[in-house]
């Protein structure tokens, strides 16, 4: 888009942030009664809710696995969520692709051996979309899984990064996504620093990859800090005891 200054000479982005700053993150767990675990995640103007059901009996018997749990994920977008109303059907390719990526991300993070022959459902619903949707979905799903009490190898925290004027931008919003630069989404297991999701479908010179990846991973750590605090506050409220430093 011509005319928009994505990075001003003073180092400010379109929404006033600096290149390394993530958007304001607000999250809450245990928001719905029907679900076993639920969470709402807001990163800037992107609002996502996630619900987890399970472990429960596998819906389709033939898909049941004898030694681990089956993870099922569905991602839906509300019609009013983006600037243009789009009554997207649930089976359009982009939705299915994102559902698949979230499912595979969590297959790596959930200790599926603890729930053999059963199924865990993760449902994410996007209420408001302003860039970084998939990352917000993954973060919301992590909190919902923790709320449901499903054993995880580690948190999965996710953040996106772009690249403008030789500077990596962390946590890009919808406007910045529309710029012709790259849009890299990364999800990591913060304590072991392992990458579980790595997705980019634009163009970038390979020399810049390391800096953009580092920026995105730093963003993931920032988000992880907030999610960790939220989980502890939630537990404190509901259980009232928290004396160990490392859960």
């Amino acid at each position, binding site marked *: 888009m011509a005319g928009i200054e994505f990075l001003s000479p003073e180092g400010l982005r379109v929404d006033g942030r600096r290149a390394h700053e993530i958007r304001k993150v607000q999250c809450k767990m245990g928001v719905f009664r*029907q679900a076993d675990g639920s969470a709402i995640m807001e990163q800037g103007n992107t609002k996502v809710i996630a619900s987890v059901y399970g472990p429960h009996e596998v819906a389709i018997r033939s898909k049941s696995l004898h030694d681990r749990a089956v993870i099922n994920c569905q991602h*839906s977008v*509300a019609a*009013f969520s*983006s600037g243009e109303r789009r009554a997207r059907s649930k089976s359009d390719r982009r939705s299915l692709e994102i559902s698949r990526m979230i499912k595979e991300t969590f297959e790596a993070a959930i200790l599926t051996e603890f729930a053999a022959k059963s199924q865990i459902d993760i449902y994410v619903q996007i*209420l*408001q979309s302003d860039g970084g949707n998939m990352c917000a979905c993954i973060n919301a799903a992590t909190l919902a899984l923790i709320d449901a009490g499903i054993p995880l190898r580690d948190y999965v925290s996710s953040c996106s990064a772009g690249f403008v004027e030789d500077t990596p931008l962390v946590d890009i919003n919808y406007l910045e996504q529309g710029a012709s630069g790259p849009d890299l989404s990364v999800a990591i297991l913060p304590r072991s620093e392992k990458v579980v999701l790595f997705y980019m479908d634009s163009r970038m010179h390979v020399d810049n990859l390391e800096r953009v990846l580092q920026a995105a991973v730093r963003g993931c750590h920032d988000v992880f800090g907030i999610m960790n605090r939220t989980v502890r506050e939630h537990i404190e409220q509901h259980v009232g005891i928290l004396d160990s430093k490392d859960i």
Partner: protein
Amino acid sequence: MAEEFKRIQPTEYLRRFVSQGVRPDGRSLTESRSISVNVGSITTADGSALVKVGNTTVICGIKGEFAVPGGDKSNEGYIVPNFELSPVSSPHVRPGPPSEEAQVISHFLSDLIKKSSFVNVEDLCIEAGKLAWALYCDLVCLDSDGSLTDASVIALLSALSSMRLPRAQVNEDTGLGEVTDTRDVKLQLNDFPVATTFGLFDGVYGLADPSNEEESLCGASFILTTSDNGLLFGCNKSGGAALPSQDLPSYMTIAVNRAKAVKSLIDTVCRDSDSINSIRSS
């Protein structure tokens, strides 16, 4: 002990409460759950509302688009409601095309808009025969705990009341519609029809605003749509256990009182939201 009894004999469990005039959650038979309304939380939509009736949560987002008024209705706009049950809402909702329940509620809302005329579709016309607003009202249920129709109607009313559209006109040169940046066009609602669901338990006890558990144990349910000024907009009962007709007036009274409470709640919320917006923009 009570938990086990509830699991093994859910109907008898409920009967023990209802026969004494209360329900397991402490409400009386005629009492509805508490309602909370939040408007304007979805900034990408022209109007939005998040409504909780007890645990049942429905969010409504309205987006206005330009449309050409059709044929003999050249001075009317359109209001198109669409309700869907998100898989997030309940373990029984399977992903896929809208279930029967969702379609029934969509149809209920569409009928309510068309036949009750609680909002004038002529107000949505920008220029007769050329341009009108089409309001797409998308409702998503996020948490399903009974009486979805009630929550959907309240969400729709709240979103319509708090919606602010930009001023629009037809550009004389291009013939296309264009909008200004200000958002001050409000929609005037003539009435506030509020739906109240009742579950009929044991063919005798009418439970107002049943939860999911109560609905599943009731032999029938019926919906009364009333407004705060005592008008009846609709009654729906499809089969199931028979309802003693002499009880209807008392159910109507409950429904009208609930409609009054809902209207004053929506009015308060919209007024507060307006004052917050005017503080923000000044």
